[in-house]
């Protein structure tokens, strides 16, 4: 399986994502934001970080990068595109997924482990994941997902919510919401579910010496689904 990770000026989880993808069998290429063409890929990842310093609005300038037109075309033709953290913010800015990401409710950067509940498995990202609940890791300042009531109804009707913040037993409640996201949303799909944006970093959970191993579960499953 071939993957591409885009490096924007200010990306800082690009290497971590490269390490994770390779560890689970992807042949990964790093792609510079100023390139026009995407290499042939089965998966394109927009990594975490602070593209363009988060200036103007998180993800807004990166969404206008040269490479992004190719990423958008790739997504529109059904290609798998995954945006993690800042990558999710970029996806929102391109309009590939609905909604916006606001500053965290308590106005503080937050770095910790969280539990998320998988809401939908009829897609190539979470299909065949044995668990219902995963322990992931978040590290962000602007992860407070928000959308209009109409949009919310639409994404709920289409089952576009990918994962919600919850406790270790899967209870979705305000007290387990780390950033104020509407309905505890941690990640969403586009309508066709080939594009996934999520705040948690599975690439930081790929080794039992690190924060945990549920990231390994996610990536192993992902590559199997793509084969």
């Amino acid at each position: 399986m071939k993957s591409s990770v885009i490096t924007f000026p200010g990306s800082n989880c690009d290497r971590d994502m490269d390490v994770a993808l390779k560890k689970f069998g992807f042949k990964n290429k790093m792609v510079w934001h100023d390139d026009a063409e995407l290499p042939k890929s089965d998966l394109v990842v927009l990594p975490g970080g602070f593209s363009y310093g988060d200036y103007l609005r998180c993800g807004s300038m990166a969404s206008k990068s040269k490479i992004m037109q190719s990423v958008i075309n790739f997504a529109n033709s059904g290609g798998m595109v995954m945006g993690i953290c800042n990558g999710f913010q970029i996806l929102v800015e391109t309009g590939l997924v609905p909604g916006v990401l606001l500053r965290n409710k308590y106005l503080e950067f937050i770095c910790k482990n969280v539990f998320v509940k998988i809401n939908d498995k009829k897609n190539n990202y979470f299909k065949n994941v044995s668990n219902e609940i995963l322990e992931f890791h978040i590290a962000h300042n602007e992860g407070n997902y928000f959308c209009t009531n109409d949009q919310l109804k639409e994404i709920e009707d289409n089952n576009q919510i990918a994962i919600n913040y919850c406790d270790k037993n899967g209870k979705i409640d305000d007290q387990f919401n780390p950033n104020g996201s509407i309905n505890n949303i941690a990640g969403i799909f586009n309508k066709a579910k080939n594009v996934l944006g999520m705040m948690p970093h599975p690439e930081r959970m790929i080794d039992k010496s690190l924060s945990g191993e549920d990231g390994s579960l996610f990536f192993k499953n992902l590559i199997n689904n793509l084969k």
Partner: protein
Amino acid sequence: MIVNEQVAVDHGLKKDEYAKICELLKRTPNITELGIFSAMWNEHCSYKSSRLHLKKLPTKGKKVIQGPGENAGVIDIEDDDAIVFKIESHNHPSFIEPYQGAATGVGGIMRDVFTMGARPIANLNSIHFGSPQHKKTKNLLRGVVHGIGGYGNCMGVPTIAGQTSFDSSYNGNILVNAMTLGLVKKDKIFYSKAAGLNKPVIYVGSKTGRDGIHGASMASASFDEKIEEKKPTVQVGDPFTEKLLLEACLELMAGDSIIAIQDMGAAGLTSSSIEMASKGNLGIEINLNKVPCREAKMTPYEIMLSESQERMLIILENGKEEHAKKIFDKWNLDFAVIGKTTKSKKIELYFDEEKVADIPVNTLVENSPMYDRKWKKAKLPKKNRIKKDDIKHLKIIDVLKKTLANPNVCSKEWIWQQYDHTVMGDTIQKPGGDAGVVRVHGTDKAVAACVDSSAVYCWAHPLTGGKQVVCESFRNLISVGAKPIAITNCLNFGSPENEENMGEFVECVQGIGEASDYLKFPVVSGNVSFYNQTKDQGIKPTPAIGGVGLISDYKNMVTMNFKEVNNLVLVIGKTEGHIDQSLFARTILDEKNGPPPEVNLFNEKNNGETLLKLINNNLIKSAHDVSLGGIITAVAKMCVKGKKGINIKKPKYLINEIEYFFAEDQGRYIIEINKKDLKKVADILNKNAVHYDELGTIIENELYINDKTKVTIDELSTSNKNWLKNYMNK
């Protein structure tokens, strides 16, 4: 502007220093030259009060590749790898403007590290605030934490450990010390020594603006009521540009274009160009019209003294300009050839085709003032005796809960959760333990780092305090299973012109020197921050020690959380019952006098090395050093972290429970072992003549003392975790 004595005094120079400048130049300096002298001769850049004493520190060792004098120290961590590290203060600016002050402190120290070719892999910090009741404390703490996070998080470098304390002596002068570790291949280390004639001098990074002018001078003076007016001297950080600068510099460093490189930190273009010329025994000629400026009509004076951030000065091999420019263009950074190296041994500056400065380099560096300041030796205070009447009403569990909720002991999760501590995917020990640990990417090795200070001990007896901090650093590294290699120090003191403050400095440095020499734990880099005082009120002497150690196989790393029910808990090291200057004496008895605990370097070394032996024999399940709050506090923290209880049986030899549990004797650790290993462990400890006590057995959920007194771990956890969160959200 006409330069005279008064103008020099306004620049922070003393009258005799101005006279010396005129004598060295054999003429009156012009205003640009005076600005350059004032920047190079202030305390912050010249170390004029400290140099004499710093020379005495042990700086050499088998593992030392580069000691003090470069941008940062470098140590050998086996194979082809080396660690570059340093700690630096940003105290004065952080008090005036906490967010930007702290942020640029972090940015500055990271630049020092990647200037040497190393990719930063971990950040740490030591931050100290006034009394929690003081009206400024909360906002300063919030601003500093946001600033540290704002910069480090954006750079994508994990913040893996730190230290936070509160003491009313910091009410008017907070301390913000930032430390960075970087990883480099031994044969790819870059230095700041210029070499070769007519080599191009290159300016890269951000444009130069009018921010931070006289920042280093501001950091070399005491505060008064007009300090808020100094806000414009604080630099403004742009971590995004620094991230680009990091990647661009490392890309250029992969080749062989660079002769020397130096970041523009304190005193900006002035100190960077002069240091490079001085080390290379060369001259440098700069055309200031070529310097990329952010604002129009900047004068030579402003360009030379600006402390705009995220800038570097590079001396390139001839003919490599195009290659280098391409890299900086790719990263959207300014690149300008602004001058060349010369044989004149002078700094010669041109602006609008006029020579605006002409100063021999040695007058700025070798001939800079050096003072043997008067200092007062501190007496060892007399011991207090605890009066039985003072403590008989105390209940241990109540005291323990109070101690765990003490601002200087409580959990600092509210702080470190705001720092990205997991980016780069190699953090195997997060903040909150004895030391942070990161793997050396792609290897089995890991590097442990910690930062410590004990201002109260240093204040009570500077010589003992200086030794103690080094020992605590040593212990923290051992506790995670790392072999201690070297330290960096950030020496925060009051005014060197005050004999008592100067005495504190001299004796703390002596203590640091003695301990680091004995423990073979040399000082490879550091920074001095004097004038941490407002009017006549100085801070408690606060040398902060950053320690670095190596774990050969990261799977052998040890953490402090209790692991398993039925395991045994031992105390390594003898408890004599030293209560003076303990947290217990100061907060529960309100007794501020008396000597700090004695430091026995033989025991420190022996106990530590023996514990490391036990760890390397896989006999240790968890370990934690005993420090503030004594044995019971250390044990309670291990319970809270491991969500386990303990049944403690106090050994018989010290009659008084309070003394046994709350004393702060040095050289001690708490360890957890499997019951079946007791004989093996006891044999090794006995063979090495290490004293130990059997303290108890791990159980579920509760802490018992001698089968009767008990408390749930949940209660202890609440005491420990809530104070800071509640304080900040109130």
